[in-house]
């Protein structure tokens, strides 16, 4: 482990740029920490934090100048790896036939800065979805292979966090190229750096680092412990898959359907939800057509509309599908749960529906 002083962080930015990376990470816009292109260290959310509850997010000032002192953004890294809107191909009519052109692989080369432990788990889950099996997603694959992941350990937790229940945090353990822990005290502000891969090591090459002494390592451990101690929410995963699959007619599904807006917010902010739709568009002449892939959600009516009608027309059916897929049939499909315990679906539900609460009721009454 090594140390980068806070004032040397600019050198990391410069090194990443020199290696051809577009740096994307946290920045404040409209009173929310979002993920976007970062030009300089100054773009980071210095001195900001967030408070999160069911259906509520508020940005707050910290009493220090921590750069990664927020908990979690409503944005997820899937916006870069699996873009919300992407052109798959376009077709042009010619005399008596037509030609199809696919966009060539010139996707961006991203350095993701500030990836949390739960988000690493989410990327690992999406890797399973998009990179394994018979159908590999070429867009995801290209972006994923080019990208560099710089994880940052959590130093605090939101009330909506439950990553320990899902075994995905708060400590960063694998799946990163570099991992940072920010130590911010009134007299010393620095980052403890752990190198995960050769690719990560490469960008550190020209930086002025010094080895981390035991006291710095201990401070870094305390940072993560602080986050761990703050986590209140839990989700009992033992026997959960079987429990949910045996309770398709539990009265709680009706109850949650009364509250659910079926607006799709939970699926859109979920770092592992991966459903999409394709839309074909033509121009006025009909000589030019395009096929676009768009993020979709199991909460929209069109999603479950098949020939002859809709197979999940009720909100009850749609909420149950989403939750049981995420926590139960995902295991059948991919060998792991689809939930990382990030709590985004709890915070960003406009009416504060809490997946952990819904699960607990179904578990209790069984």
């Amino acid at each position, binding site marked *: 482990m090594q140390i980068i002083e806070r004032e040397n962080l600019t050198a990391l930015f410069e090194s990443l740029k020199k290696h051809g990376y577009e740096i994307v990470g946290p920045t404040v816009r409209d009173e929310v920490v979002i993920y976007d292109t970062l030009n300089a260290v100054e773009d980071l959310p210095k001195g900001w934090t967030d408070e999160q509850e069911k259906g509520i*997010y508020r940005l707050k000032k910290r009493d220090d100048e921590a750069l990664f002192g927020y908990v979690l953004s409503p944005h997820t890294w899937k916006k870069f790896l699996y873009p919300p809107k992407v052109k798959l191909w376009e077709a042009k009519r010619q005399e008596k036939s037509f030609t199809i052109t696919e966009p060539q692989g010139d996707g961006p080369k991203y350095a993701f800065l500030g990836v949390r432990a739960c988000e690493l788990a989410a990327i690992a889950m999406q890797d399973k979805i998009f990179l394994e099996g018979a159908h590999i997603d070429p867009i995801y694959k290209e972006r994923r292979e080019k990208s560099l992941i710089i994880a940052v350990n959590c130093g605090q937790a939101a009330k909506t966090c439950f990553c320990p229940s899902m075994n995905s945090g708060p400590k960063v353990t694998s799946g990163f190229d570099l991992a940072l822990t920010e130590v911010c005290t009134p007299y010393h502000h620095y980052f403890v750096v752990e190198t995960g891969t050769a690719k990560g090591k490469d960008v550190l090459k020209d930086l002025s680092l010094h080895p981390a002494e035991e006291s710095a390592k201990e401070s870094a451990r305390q940072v993560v412990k602080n986050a761990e101690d703050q986590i209140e929410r839990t989700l009992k995963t033992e026997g959960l898959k079987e429990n949910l699959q045996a309770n398709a007619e539990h009265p709680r599904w009706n109850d949650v359907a009364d509250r659910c807006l*079926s607006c799709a917010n939970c699926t*859109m902010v979920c770092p592992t939800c991966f459903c999409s739709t394709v839309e074909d568009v033509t121009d006025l*002449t009909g000589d030019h057509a395009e096929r676009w892939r768009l993020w979709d959600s199991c909460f929209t009516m069109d999603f479950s509309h098949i020939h002859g009608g809709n197979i999940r027309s009720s909100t009850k059916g749609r909420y149950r599908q989403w939750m049981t897929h995420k926590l139960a049939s995902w295991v059948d499909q991919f060998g792991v749960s689809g939930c990382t315990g990030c709590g985004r679906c709890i915070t960003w539900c406009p009416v504060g529906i809490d997946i952990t609460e819904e699960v607990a009721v179904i578990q209790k009454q069984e």
Partner: protein
Amino acid sequence: MSKKPKLAVYKFASCDGCQLSLLDCEDELLAIAGEVEIANFPEASRAVQEGPYDVTLVEGSVTTPHDAERIKEVRQQSKVLITIGACATAGGIQALRNFSDVKEFTSIVYAKPQYISTLATSTPISDHVPVDFELRGCPVNKYQLIELICAYLNGRKPNIPTYSVCVECKRRMTPCVAVSKGEMCLGPVTQAGCGALCPAYTRGCYGCFGPNETPNTSALSEWWTEHGRDKAELVRAFRGFNAWAEPFRKESERHE
């Protein structure tokens, strides 16, 4: 080459904003004129051809006895009739009269109210004649309008989604203003189509595109009430440009 389809645009009680959206197509307008014959569009040209028409766009709601008759003639002249905008589709902002007494209004507003011949209600076109497609919005979104015309010309289903505005917010990466600022946002119960315009400028959605496919308005009201909003605020939220659309109407009436 086959004959170009004849297009007509009619106006009823409205502000002309939706017709302007068509004129606002600028870059695409010449292409549209190349593919359809603009046969009757008084806002764009004085040259008016007689019907029948292949496609008719109708803006505005029915608010007078005269218009209630006129829309029947328009329907007779039109193979395909598409309503454009909140007025034609849900009665518009002028449907606020439906919750009050119009006679009282006219007595206050006009010096000689006896000259005013108006109905007690403002109603959507579909209350009077069969409608083939309803394009939502106050005003309509010009890209949706072009998409609709493209789909018609190419004989395909238009890509006009009926899900919530939230989906559009998320696809354009706008953080939820309801959650991050406590804005009263109708997005979760409103149909997409505007591109989630207001939240992109950190304002809550006003519901210009009317109720979405499965509008759970009562759950949204309940959340607002729990978070300190009073009944008057709830009524006002649902009584906007689509106040007379059934789910919004019922929800506002519940809190009166």
